[in-house]
């Protein structure tokens, strides 16, 4: 019997196959078929973006954030990288019988603070309680509507050979903090999740020369670059030496055998920008706290094999594929 497994949800190949073979096949329409982080909708003269995201993180509280903050950032960031300023959010919570009131309050306050920081409001909500054991603590869904920036021209079809790839900061911080909080791994580090709303950052850099943006969440930088390559049909080549990774995250990855290129981020974006404007966009990014570690990491190639190449630190070359399944700590 065919069943859904955890790997279907890890953001990699299996999930993409499922989306294509089940969801697009049955639910497909011109908006959904674009498979963007948010759908772009016209309402009168206004251009709107509409996105949704669900949150099932374990543990609920981790260094640098919690499920509440994450649930605001997730939807806000999907709207922001689609070139929109988030305006209105909805929030649905499903809670397990017996869940601590104090924890629910802590999560709610965290949602409030993240909304204030991002300048959005929860304007619609839903709350359900299910019997013990039916879910693990609390699940949250948020959806949001944003207004598309006037000078936003985000469209994968505009990506051309020679365009530069920028990452807005260090990668792997979120996944590393979750991993440390989740498993019984006794490491003493100061690694914190990068979980933050990107909308104000985006509004400070948005311009016609930014052709495409995406936030590298599940599956990490490597998987998101593959999505960009698929959406544009062009190959992408990046340089390992240019990719910013915090020392502590790198060390943890070396010990556990993890690849930071496949680790989730919650406060970073990848931008594909025209070659001529790359340096000026990079310096604009660096002026903002969320972009201070931004780097140009590679470029779009003219070949159309939809592949992503990594020039390794030591001068080797390999294909960066999408993530397959979850990464697990190695033996030795």
């Amino acid at each position: 019997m065919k069943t859904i497994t955890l790997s279907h949800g890890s953001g990699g190949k299996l999930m993409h196959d499922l989306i294509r073979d089940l969801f697009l096949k049955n639910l497909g329409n011109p908006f959904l078929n674009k498979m963007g982080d948010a759908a772009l909708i016209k309402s009168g003269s206004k251009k709107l973006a509409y996105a949704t995201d669900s949150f099932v993180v374990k543990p609920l509280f981790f260094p640098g954030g919690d499920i509440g903050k994450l649930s605001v950032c997730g939807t806000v960031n999907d709207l922001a990288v689609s070139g929109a300023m988030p305006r209105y959010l909805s929030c649905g919570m499903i809670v397990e019988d017996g869940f601590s009131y104090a924890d629910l309050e802590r999560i709610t306050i965290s949602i409030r603070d993240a909304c204030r920081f991002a300048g959005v409001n929860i304007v619609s909500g839903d709350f359900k309680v299910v019997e013990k054991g039916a879910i693990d603590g609390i699940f949250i869904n948020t959806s949001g509507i944003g207004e598309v920036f006037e000078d936003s021209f985000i469209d994968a079809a505009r990506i051309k050979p020679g365009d530069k790839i920028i990452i807005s900061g260090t990668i792997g911080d979120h996944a590393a903090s979750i991993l440390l909080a989740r498993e019984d791994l006794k490491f003493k580090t100061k690694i914190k999740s990068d979980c933050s709303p990107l909308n104000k950052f985006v509004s400070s850099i948005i311009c016609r020369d930014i052709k495409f943006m995406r936030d590298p969440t599940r599956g990490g930088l490597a998987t998101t670059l593959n999505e960009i390559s698929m959406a544009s049909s062009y190959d992408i080549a990046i340089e390992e030496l240019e990719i910013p990774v915090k020392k502590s995250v790198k060390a943890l990855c070396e010990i556990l055998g993890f690849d930071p290129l496949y680790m989730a981020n919650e406060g970073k974006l990848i931008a594909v920008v025209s070659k001529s404007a790359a340096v000026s966009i990079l310096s604009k990014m660096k002026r903002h706290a969320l972009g201070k570690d931004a780097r140009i990491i590679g470029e779009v190639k003219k070949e159309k094999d939809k592949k992503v190449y990594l020039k390794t630190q030591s001068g080797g070359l390999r294909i960066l594929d999408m993530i397959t399944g979850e990464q697990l700590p190695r033996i030795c």
Partner: protein
Amino acid sequence: MKYIDEFRNLDIAARISGLIKEEARGLGDMNFMEVCGTHTMAVERFGIRRMLPENVRLISGPGCPVCVTPKNYIDKAIALTSLENVIVFSFGDMLKVPGTNSSLLKQKLKGKVKIVYSAFDAALFAEKNRNKKIVFLGIGFETTAPTVAATVKYAKKKKLENFFVYSNHKVMPPAMKLLAKDKKANIKGFLCPAHVSAIIGMKPYARICEGYNIPCVIAGFEPLDILHSVFMLIRQVKSKKAKVENQYNRVVKFSGNIKALRLIEEVFSINDSDWRGIGVIKNSGLILSKRYRDFDAEKNIDLPDVKTSVDKGCICGSVLKGIKTPLDCALFSKKCTPENPYGACMVSSEGACAAYYRYPAPLASLGYGTSRK
């Protein structure tokens, strides 16, 4: 990062790669086996094949602990999780390995499996939860065995009656000897494992080296270590005199780690062991010795009977012996993928098939180098 980035240096890598090309010219085809799974991973991750000339081939060996753990052991470990009051503790990458009907990852969702980075964490958990039976899945080679041995000693000292090790530890030299004998593999040199050698030292390789006239170089795991070691192997081939050399001398000492070796000797005894894909190799396994039998899961917990199915159509055995590469397998990347592995070499991140799958060779047509050898 200190002590890491220096050993990944771009310019030095290019220089050694140039030296290798010069040295290897006119020597004919050379198969060098990287015995250890971590070498396999590094070779693929850093794209090292592309830095070697056509006549130098790196082939993957049996040194991935997860890959060579027999399926029946996995089935038994899974069955253990269904026993009341038992919690199974494991290293992370064991979890994906499919047994006949399930995997430990599926059991983890039910809270019966926990991931630890050290056996010691499992013993500490046992100490705090004396009403639960804690079974640690002891797998791996000489690298992991000493820490497990130290943990068992700790358990004895603390009189932990609820801590058990289900041991499937293996030792490397007997497997290398078997491969050295195998004419089909045609191995011209061994890149000996870095961490294993840190424990056992240089001596155990001498018999393999002298007995079968196969050059052995103990190699570190970073790209420059591997390139340097390949260079040393080629020099040995050229001089026609096989010896044991130690490239990884910043860590590996001639006699290894005496303290760790004594721990292994005290806590374990040698037995014959089944290697997935290869079969039983004489004197290649470690079980808990008589003195520590109270901590042996097999002697103290009724392991449930399990029926284990045979892997069909999979050529992992030949891949582990270096006779074939994953690309020779009809199942590879079609029916057998990391999400749905058929054989041992696809399940662990260190397995040759998983490494080939995760790090496919760039297409020659793009001018990024030649196709994979």
